[in-house]
């Protein structure tokens, strides 16, 4: 039997742009879905599944748009299930393992604090589809941010153990936050065209959100400003391959079928 080819994607700047955001949402949604049935309390089982569902919904819209912008007959499932690790374009942050509840919530907090600002800004995109996706996503990310912020405060200002765990998670994940603000030449052109927003303009407000929550939680942000990069160009951590082999197993085993 023939091997299963990866989906070839013609990565124009716009396709790549949509794909990167779609991959962020899918991979983070997938990670959160791993908690389903295993959370510390039933209410959190529901909350984490709920956020996962929102993110997978965003991913589907963004993949569908990327496929349309590409115009080569790809669709959401071909893009999600038949690209390998080197073709995935998500942030390193979102592929990090769930770890304990603190690590999951810190990852969510770093991402949602950005996504909330990002989607609100993207509502003014000259690309009407991206603006519409932003308008829907913004409502969801505001809820995600509130949920994560409340937990950071609860854990930071809870017990000694929870304080220690959440601080450790912040220290561990901090180096993956720089990539939230990275921009390449293709994106620079989209920014000039008013299609994308410059994430650098969000960094100040993102840091303010983080500082406010972290200080209320009696925690501190790391001084270290070395930032890990690579996800946007397909140079991932070792975690993503395992995630994809699980995510893609059905499509890889039974190619080309309808489910």
């Amino acid at each position, binding site marked *: 039997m023939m091997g299963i080819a990866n989906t070839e994607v013609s990565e124009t700047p716009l396709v790549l742009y949509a794909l990167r955001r779609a991959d962020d949402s899918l991979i983070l949604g997938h990670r959160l879905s791993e908690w*389903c049935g295993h959370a*510390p309390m039933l209410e*959190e089982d529901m909350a984490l599944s709920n956020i996962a569902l929102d993110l*997978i919904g965003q991913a589907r819209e963004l993949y569908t748009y990327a496929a349309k912008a590409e115009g080569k007959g790809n669709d959401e499932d071909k893009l999600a299930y038949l690209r390998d690790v080197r073709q995935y374009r998500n942030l390193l942050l979102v592929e990090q393992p769930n770890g304990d509840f603190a690590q999951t919530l810190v990852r969510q907090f770093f991402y949602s604090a950005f996504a909330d600002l990002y989607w609100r800004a993207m509502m003014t995109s000259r690309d009407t589809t991206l603006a519409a996706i932003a308008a829907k996503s913004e409502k969801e990310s505001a809820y995600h941010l509130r949920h994560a912020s409340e937990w950071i405060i609860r854990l930071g200002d*809870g017990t000694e*153990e929870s304080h220690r765990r959440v601080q450790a998670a912040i220290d561990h994940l901090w180096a993956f936050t720089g990539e939230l603000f990275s921009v390449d030449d293709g994106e620079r052109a989209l920014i000039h065209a008013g299609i994308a927003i410059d994430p650098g303009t969000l960094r100040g407000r993102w840091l303010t959100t983080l500082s406010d929550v972290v200080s209320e939680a009696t925690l501190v942000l790391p001084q270290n400003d070395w930032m890990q990069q690579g996800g946007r160009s397909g140079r991932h951590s070792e975690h993503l391959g395992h995630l994809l082999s699980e995510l893609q197993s059905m499509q890889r085993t*039974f190619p080309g079928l309808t489910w």
Partner: protein
Amino acid sequence: MRMYTQALNTTETDDRGLEDAAKAAQFQARIDAEERIEPNDWMPSAYRKTLTRQISQHAHSEIVGMLPEGNWITRAPSLRRKAALLAKVQDECGHGLYLYAAAETLGASREELVDAMLAGKAKYSSIFNYPTLTWADIGTIGWLVDGAAIMNQIPLCRCSYGPYARAMIRVCKEESFHQRQGYEIMVTLCRGSDEQKTMAQDALNRWWWPVLMMFGPPDATSQHSDTSTKWKIKRFSNDELRQKFVDATVPQAQYLGLTIPDPGMVQDADGHWRYSEIDWTEFKQVLAGNGPCNRDRMAARRKAHEEGAWVREAAAAYAAKRAQRPTAQAAE
């Protein structure tokens, strides 16, 4: 304010037996008149006990039931199916929460009920002790397991205890949606490739008998039936519901082009599909903890509970600090 005098029933008085008999008669008259019993109403302690047992086991089933399907969330074959499955498992968690809330109106606490389940003292539905081995199992669970659950739960929407009946109305609406979704997965598989059809048939072969067992032991040996029927907690017998389920399911299997793994099955003169003897030994073994996944299911729930302890403690500690804060500020 109307006093709730249930606790006074424990006071020793000479005419207590007579008083209770009068209350019991009045209670039965309300049941017979199809009135709903509400949390503050007088009820026989056995009614309270049997409902607490049934509602909490129902709640435990929703929660443990997240595991077999949750097993496929990360491997669902399309994004549409992944989203639908995630939404479904989330609904099940919500059902668990409604049901624990309904059980709490009877005076139990969710924590003690959950502890009893984790300690293996309270049961959950036997069906969730079977493994989900292929994607077709997810379709089959929606179609058959949710289908059987609906057969059981629709009559419970008229159950004599108000909070349970109302919880069931909400649960049944979502459950019917899940069942249609599951059947749609099966339709897709059965219209698909040969390997998809084989996968669907294999899933039906493995789930058919365990699903029939979901209706409980045969009427002749069901230990809770008599009082449950008298109190209108139960409206139909186990065997009646099981027959109803089989009659509804056979045409669905035929439509799918699947074979029910019961060569002895025949349609009688009245149109009922008569099924062969169920393996009650297997049923008893599963209930006794010896099903294929009992140990894994309990281990997963205990692990979530134990590893989540520090999170719950943190939330409680933070809430206590917050509660103290205005007082501390006022004292300054």
